[in-house]
């Protein structure tokens, strides 16, 4: 079964064709990186898959289920989780509260109006376990806005993982990180169980080659190459785009 099947996806913003008919399938358990120069349509593709924007044409199928017209939260409930390129957390809440919100969503959200959060010990346990697992227990009571950028990027991942997703979209998980922090996030992603299918945008070619089984290259809204790292490295069009050879 395919985790994700995208067919003929097209989207334009005021005359700029961000996606010009992209077809892409990601097998269950696969780790796929999407690379391409700035403006290639990578982030638009992610927004389309996660439902932040609706495309002008094409279809998106998540685990045999058509999701093209579903709202983002409905897609999330079907097992689609994502991180954001620009850190998107709850800065005024504590680390624990951030994770609790993600855990609550996974528990169905409809947890009543009057019972306090504290009366749901299982949610707390799960949130605390996640923080422990990723070595952030010591920061549980700190406000997210007071964390370092590297820690915030880790929370991005933890929030996405809290709902036990089946397909994880990572939008430049290592953007702006120092080499040491990058290594930490790479290790985090590597350690994820294989049941989680991963589709990631990655600017850093080394990171992409290290984490992904296969790579998709986008350029000007079109898919121009697909394959394992050797195929991509030796692909004439890819080197043309990246090295500027005419």
């Amino acid at each position, binding site marked *: 079964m395919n985790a994700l099947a995208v067919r003929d996806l097209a989207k334009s913003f005021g005359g700029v064709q961000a996606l010009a008919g992209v077809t892409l399938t990601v097998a269950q358990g696969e780790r796929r990186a999407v690379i391409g120069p700035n403006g290639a349509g990578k982030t638009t593709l992610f927004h389309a898959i996660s439902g932040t924007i609706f495309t002008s044409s094409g279809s998106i199928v998540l685990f045999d289920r058509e999701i093209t017209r579903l709202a983002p939260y409905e897609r*999330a409930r079907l097992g689609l989780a994502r991180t954001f390129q620009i850190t998107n957390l709850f800065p005024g809440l504590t680390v624990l509260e951030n994770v609790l*919100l993600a855990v609550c969503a996974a528990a169905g959200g409809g947890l009543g109006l*009057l019972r306090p959060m504290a009366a749901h010990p299982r949610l707390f346990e799960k949130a605390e376990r996640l923080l422990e697992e990723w070595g952030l227990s010591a920061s549980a009571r700190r406000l997210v806005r007071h964390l370092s950028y590297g820690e915030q990027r880790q929370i991005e991942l933890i929030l996405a993982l809290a709902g036990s997703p089946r397909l994880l979209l990572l939008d430049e998980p290592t953007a702006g990180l120092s080499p040491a922090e990058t290594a930490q996030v790479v290790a985090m992603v590597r350690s994820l169980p294989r049941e989680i299918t991963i589709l990631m945008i990655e600017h850093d070619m080394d990171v992409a080659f290290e984490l992904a089984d296969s790579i998709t290259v986008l350029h000007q809204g079109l898919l121009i190459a697909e394959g394992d790292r050797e195929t991509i490295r030796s692909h004439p069009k890819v080197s043309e785009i990246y090295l500027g050879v005419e």
Partner: protein
Amino acid sequence: MNIRPRLAALGAGALVLLVLPYFLPSYFLGLATKMLIFALFAMSLDLLLGYTGLASLGHAAYFGVAAYTVGLLALKANASLWLALPAGLLAAGVTAAFFGLLALRARGSYFLMITLALAQVLWAIAFSWRSMTGGDDGLPNIPRPELPLPWPLADSTPFYYFVLLVAGAAAVLLARIVRSPFGYALRGIRESESRMLALGYNVWRYKYLAFVLAGLFAGLAGCLYVYYNRFVSPEYLHVVRSAEVLLMVILGGAGTLVGPAIGAGVIVLLENVISAHTQRWLMVLGAVYVVVTLFAPRGLMGLVQDYKQRRSGP
């Protein structure tokens, strides 16, 4: 923060409120009653402004609709509390449910403008429908409800306790709501709507429910206020009232429940003191707003939090 000092402060506050009638002359007890009613009104708005991050400039709509409903029922049908109060709440809830459908399509300042416009429509109706609402003159001589108790609510002390009981129960309910997973979700929406969507929250539904709940609690405050004043006029629905309650929340500190209650107390007191000396109450209100945004952008509760943080060290 430590739980115990906070509980002690709340307990002390509750005790003071309970024994207040034994120390205050009846005029000031009336003022205290008004403070309690506006504390509830401000807390209801804070559910939107402080917790969900929705700045409504039309919150008087639900307050006023409930007040008119109770006033008309009490005056024209001699309705008892058991009929008038639920009817007032229902009217406020239905109004909020309808306005929410319209206003929640927009965000930020557009949301603010739509809530303002919708409330002003109600104000215009109340102003011009003279045969029903008495127009600008309002509806005077609304009787206070009669309860099967030895103490008539027409007296200031029993009425104070009646308001304290109702507003207190509502405050407890609000405190539970903001501590529930639902309340946490509202804070999440305030911090980042797109992240909440990505996590799987139906953000619109949460906002809508918060909107209706805030309208209901505002309606409850309106019901109490019409009994308190024995009078209702279009001024109840006016944008000035909406702005006043918004300022109460901001002055006290949005995002806490205690803050807006204190803010309400301060504004009611100020208004009372100042309008004895000058007609320019609105100017003073504007000045208060400027001072707060300049020197205490997170309100009085923000100042308290900063002080605590400084004392406990970095």
